[in-house]
């Protein structure tokens, strides 16, 4: 309900309309969705994950476990949004989740009646046997009854972006400690980025109103913001959450730019990729719930969160609020409620006595304070109707009943240590405050072994204003000076607030609660994990907190146990009879709250999803409706279907035309690496298995490259340009990799060799003109003597062809007469057009990569990636002729001498022809007799390349077969897709023009 007083953040003259589950509601500008729902008395906001129990808002910040909604419609639909993190805007549409058929009436609540059948670890226990039941019965039912929001069905039309920034000091958290840290670092002259996840500055201080520097907290915040704004070296961002801290001072932050203003233009969210010299985590603390029976009934919430709602938004949950606590801070809620004109029938204090300044202040207002007291149970179903009171040190015998419609609880505070811990910052257990706090002696360390994160303020365990603000200022000064900015930033601000008596750790309420009470005490609201579940896990032998987490689901899902972790591990340690620090915490992993995938993707979607490389004639391929296939990051034409022609028919036509007339291939993607220097020949002799230093200038040689282990990694034609310059062609996918491989060896092993390399792949467009009429075509264009005498096979030359400066290689990957012509890339398209124009009368047709494959397979030429897979050595492919016997060494030589590489039983390359002429399935295995140790059929080979050969009119294939070349003529069986086998005869892999006459004319 909305109060007449209070509400420092809302503008009551600016109504904002929104809807929840289809119901029209009204809030004010400045509201969060959470405060607006409470203002409309919407106390029930969701159902729990497992038992579908009614749930209400528990918190006011990122720790909220219950109130997750599906927000927006269409392209803005987003599931699992915490209502506490949504700034209200006109027209907002929200729906509750995890209920069926409605929030008010949910059949899933039947799960709750079955709760004794759904104990801790129920997934593991109940549903494993019988196996088939799991898949067909249990899983579908569980999936329907338990689940968070639905995935959006339409594409997200919003834009997202990244921003890279480097700063000296990153301050995460805009409360007083963070502001003080930024102030100190900013005054010292450091480049500072200050982030605040909510829409406003000041954190808890502007709600609880301590004095700072003799003024109210709000005034100090305003003055400080003014000073920070005036510093050009400080950037400040609200609605920007520090999401993760990583090695080397890298951090991610998530800025919500237009979530609160959907009509505003520009990117919706921005992911900040920050490189920080030093990071200050001033991330505050989270209040802990108390574990009493039925502490999950809507209307039970955290005491400080209720204070936030009253003070910030002028909103209350009920008229009569019972406060239950183990510390003095919760008394501030009693004061705030009283000041707002609301009833506080009693403060239930679990401590033996409550005599601090704050309790006395509360008593003075006539509010009852019951020490050594506890809540025995909360009454009410979808809303609190009252509480029963008992003694904290007893077993739960009721002493009194109090009617109320709201319960505000405080179990003490846990510093938000997540960002401190993401990169390895360690924690210590603070016995007095019953909290884990950062251990300043064991921070996350950078490359130099020194810490790069400093926790500050409440996040560092300083719960009181004076310490928190001084700690923040000190952290900022230290971070700036570590980052090299030693200018004196002046004195730390002085803070002052009411003194507090010590809190008392209370993990179960009442302390001696019997089982039936413990089975109703919720530790983890989001995952329906109760005190009894954790105790059961301990009984069953789960001693590690990490195992208990997985077994019970405590601290899983979207909130990752922000409220439940410490309470849960305290219960676990008690059940194990160990101290809390010995049990320890689960691992804090980034991000702090879930990051939308869209923010992570940033601009990388649709056409910018990944770079697609384009050759100089890509436009022509697209204009001629080529079918494309990805080859590395290129899109190469697979075939050029004409009219209604199928892809298969197009390939057949292209192959035949290339064999009979002339074909044209865009080979621009093949890698071209220049290697030059006095030691270039020696270097290439190491890189290739064959001898390249002896290659005459003007000649070409096919070469193989192996990894150190001897495996074949790339191949291509090498051309000698001049005395100390070679041009190495690589495969399309190999260009960058092989260039890096060469540089790797040159820079790390042979750094004293005089060799330079350069990847010039993209400087040239390169086209293969292939077929019996290839020479006719080039002579028709004119300008160079390309006769067999002038330019024999495996030679290259330069000249001017049709006015273009060209380099022509007589090399062939098809077995036909073939010229590969390189022109500068900027003239590639024009030269291609010229070839097409002059080629048309000769029957020229362009051909794609599939025809290229068929042409080479008919000739028995291997293809890197088909015949090789990282486990194949050149000897397996009968390429011994390309392995120099004269050289002392080359990369891979030693590897190929190992016993297994010399094994005569290795699978070796052969041709395969099916007896029925069919095409073998790609990758099919040749079956052998018997079974292996796993009960699988033994194999003796596999298919590596398989095609329909238009030239021969039947299926042809290559494969690796055990002792294959020794078994010519033998028939072996290959597996077929869908079962059965097909017989194939082992044959020579060269199916066409075995003598190689056609390419050498």
């Amino acid at each position: 309900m909305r109060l007449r007083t209070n509400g420092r953040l809302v503008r009551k003259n600016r109504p904002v309309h929104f809807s929840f589950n289809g119901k029209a509601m009204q809030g004010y500008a400045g509201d969060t969705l959470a405060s607006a729902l409470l203002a409309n008395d919407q106390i029930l906001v969701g159902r729990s994950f497992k038992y579908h129990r009614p749930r209400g808002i528990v918190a006011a910040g990122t720790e909220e476990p219950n109130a997750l909604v599906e927000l927006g419609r269409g392209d803005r639909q987003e599931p699992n949004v915490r209502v506490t993190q949504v700034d209200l805007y006109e027209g907002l549409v929200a729906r509750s989740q995890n209920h069926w058929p409605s929030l008010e009436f949910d059949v899933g609540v039947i799960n709750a009646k079955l709760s004794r059948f759904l104990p801790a670890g129920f997934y593991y226990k109940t549903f494993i046997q019988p196996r088939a039941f799991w898949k067909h019965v249990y899983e579908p039912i569980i999936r329907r009854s338990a689940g968070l929001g639905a995935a959006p069905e339409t594409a997200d039309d919003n834009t997202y972006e990244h921003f890279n920034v480097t700063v000296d000091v990153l301050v995460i958290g805009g409360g007083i400690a963070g502001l003080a840290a930024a102030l100190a670092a900013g005054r010292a002259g450091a480049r500072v980025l200050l982030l605040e996840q909510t829409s406003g500055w000041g954190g808890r201080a502007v709600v609880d109103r301590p004095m700072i520097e003799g003024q109210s907290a709000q005034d100090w915040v305003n003055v400080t913001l003014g000073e920070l704004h005036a510093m050009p070296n400080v950037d400040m961002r609200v609605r920007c959450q520090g999401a993760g801290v990583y090695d080397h001072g890298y951090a991610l932050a998530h800025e919500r730019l237009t979530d609160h203003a959907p009509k505003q233009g520009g990117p919706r969210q921005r992911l900040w990729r920050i490189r920080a010299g030093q990071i200050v985590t001033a991330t505050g603390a989270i209040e802990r719930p108390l574990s009493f029976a039925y502490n999950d009934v809507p209307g039970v919430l955290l005491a400080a969160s209720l204070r936030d709602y009253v003070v910030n938004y002028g909103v209350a949950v009920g008229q009569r609020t019972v406060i239950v606590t183990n510390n003095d801070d919760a008394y501030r809620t009693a004061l705030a409620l009283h000041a707002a004109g609301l009833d506080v029938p009693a403060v239930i204090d679990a401590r033996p006595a409550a005599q601090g300044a704050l309790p006395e202040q509360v008593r003075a207002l006539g509010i009852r304070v019951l020490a050594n007291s506890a809540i025995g149970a909360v009454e009410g179903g979808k809303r609190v109707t009252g509480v029963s009171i008992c003694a904290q040190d007893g077993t739960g015998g009721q002493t009194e009943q109090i009617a109320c419609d709201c319960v505000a609880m405080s179990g003490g505070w846990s510093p938000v240590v997540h960002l401190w811990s993401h990169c390895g910052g360690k924690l210590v257990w603070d016995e007095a405050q019953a909290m884990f706090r950062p251990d300043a002696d064991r921070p996350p360390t950078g490359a130099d072994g020194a810490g790069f994160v400093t926790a500050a303020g409440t996040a560092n365990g300083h719960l009181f204003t004076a310490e928190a603000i001084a700690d923040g200022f000190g952290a900022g000064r230290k971070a700036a000076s570590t980052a090299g900015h030693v200018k004196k930033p002046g004195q730390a601000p002085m803070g002052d607030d009411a003194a507090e008596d010590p809190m008392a750790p209370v993990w179960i309420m009442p302390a001696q609660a019997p089982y039936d009470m413990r089975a109703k005490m919720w530790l983890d609201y989001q995952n329906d994990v109760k005190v009894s579940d954790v105790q059961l896990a301990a009984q069953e032998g789960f001693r590690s907190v990490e195992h208990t987490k997985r077994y019970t689901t405590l601290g899983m899902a979207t909130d990752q146990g922000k409220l439940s972790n410490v309470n849960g591990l305290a219960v676990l340690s008690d059940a194990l009879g160990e101290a809390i620090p010995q049990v320890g915490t689960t691992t804090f992993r980034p991000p702090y709250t879930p990051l939308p995938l869209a923010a992570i993707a940033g601009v990388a979607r649709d056409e910018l999803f990944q770079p697609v490389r384009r050759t100089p004639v890509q436009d022509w391929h697209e204009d001629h409706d080529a079918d494309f296939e990805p080859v590395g990051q290129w899109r190469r034409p697979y075939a050029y279907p004409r009219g209604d022609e199928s892809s298969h028919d197009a390939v057949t036509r292209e192959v035949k035309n290339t064999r009979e007339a002339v074909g044209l291939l865009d080979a621009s993607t093949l890698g071209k690496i220049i290697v030059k220097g006095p030691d270039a020949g020696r270097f290439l002799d190491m890189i290739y298995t064959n001898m390249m230093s002896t290659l005459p200038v003007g000649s070409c040689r096919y070469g193989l490259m192996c990894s150190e282990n001897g495996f074949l990694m790339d191949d291509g034609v090498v051309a000698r340009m001049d005395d100390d310059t070679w041009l190495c062609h690589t495969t399309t996918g190999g260009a960058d990799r092989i260039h890096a491989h060469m540089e790797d060896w040159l820079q790390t092993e042979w750094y004293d060799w005089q060799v330079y390399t350069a990847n010039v792949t993209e400087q040239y467009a390169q086209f293969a003109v292939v077929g019996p009429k290839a020479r006719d075509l080039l002579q028709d264009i004119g300008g160079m003597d390309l006769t067999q005498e002038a330019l024999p096979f495996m030679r290259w030359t330069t000249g001017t062809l049709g006015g273009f400066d060209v380099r022509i290689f007589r090399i062939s990957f098809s077995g036909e007469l073939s010229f590969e012509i390189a022109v500068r890339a900027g003239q590639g398209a024009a030269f291609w057009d010229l070839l097409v124009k002059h080629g048309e009368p000769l029957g020229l047709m362009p051909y794609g990569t599939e025809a290229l494959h068929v042409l080479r397979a008919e000739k028995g030429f291997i293809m890197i990636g088909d015949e090789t897979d990282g486990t194949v050595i050149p000897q397996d492919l009968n390429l011994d002729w390309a392995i120099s016997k004269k050289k002392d060494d080359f990369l891979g030589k030693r590897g190929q001498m190992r016993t297994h590489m010399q094994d005569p039983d290795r699978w070796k390359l052969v041709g395969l022809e099916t007896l029925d002429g069919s095409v073998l399935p790609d990758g099919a295995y040749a079956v052998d007799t018997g079974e292996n140790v796993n009960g699988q059929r033994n194999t003796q080979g596999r298919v590596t390349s398989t095609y329909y050969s238009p030239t021969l009119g039947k299926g042809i294939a290559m494969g690796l077969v055990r002792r294959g070349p020794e078994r010519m003529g033998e028939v072996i069986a290959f597996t077929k897709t869908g079962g059965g086998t097909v017989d194939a005869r082992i044959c020579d892999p060269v199916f066409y023009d075995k003598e190689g006459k056609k390419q050498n004319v």
Partner: protein
Amino acid sequence: MSEPVSALRGRATSGSVQVSDMGLQGMISLRCDLSFGKLKALSKDLVGAPVPALREAQVRNDRAALWMSPDELLFLMPHTEVDDALSRIAKAMKDQHHLALDVSDARALLRVEGPFAREVIAKLAPVDLHPDVFGPGQVLRTRLGQIAAAFWMTDAQTFQVICFRSVAHYAFDLLEASAKAGPVGHFPRGT
């Protein structure tokens, strides 16, 4: 003979920060020992500027010498002068181990110009672009989105960006999208 074309064929955007194809640009990659004595005179001869030091860009109108790595420079000049420049390099570097190559066609050159050009680049490149750290006279080889790129500034709000030719359209689209998304407001405008 046909005139060469750039990969982007003159593409350009309008808007507060504009992205445009700078067309054909002569580029020569020179790998050698950068302390070689005659290099100073060669650099002066080719672009009218001294040999650039670490991460330095020596820009003189339509010419420049850019530091690429401890043993590599990139010379920029009008496209038509490349062949002549290559022969002058060959003469100056005679008997000195080096590799000089025309890489004009292997690259694309783009201009990003406008009041928040610095932020347009910073959205895409994982480097420190604070005006105190990076400004005219310097060059960076880094990444732009998912591709390799290099850039330098010719004045307080103009970047020149080179990338490989095959990904020129990706680079252009990326820069266009980043410019269209508007400023971040982190760096002072116009710096």
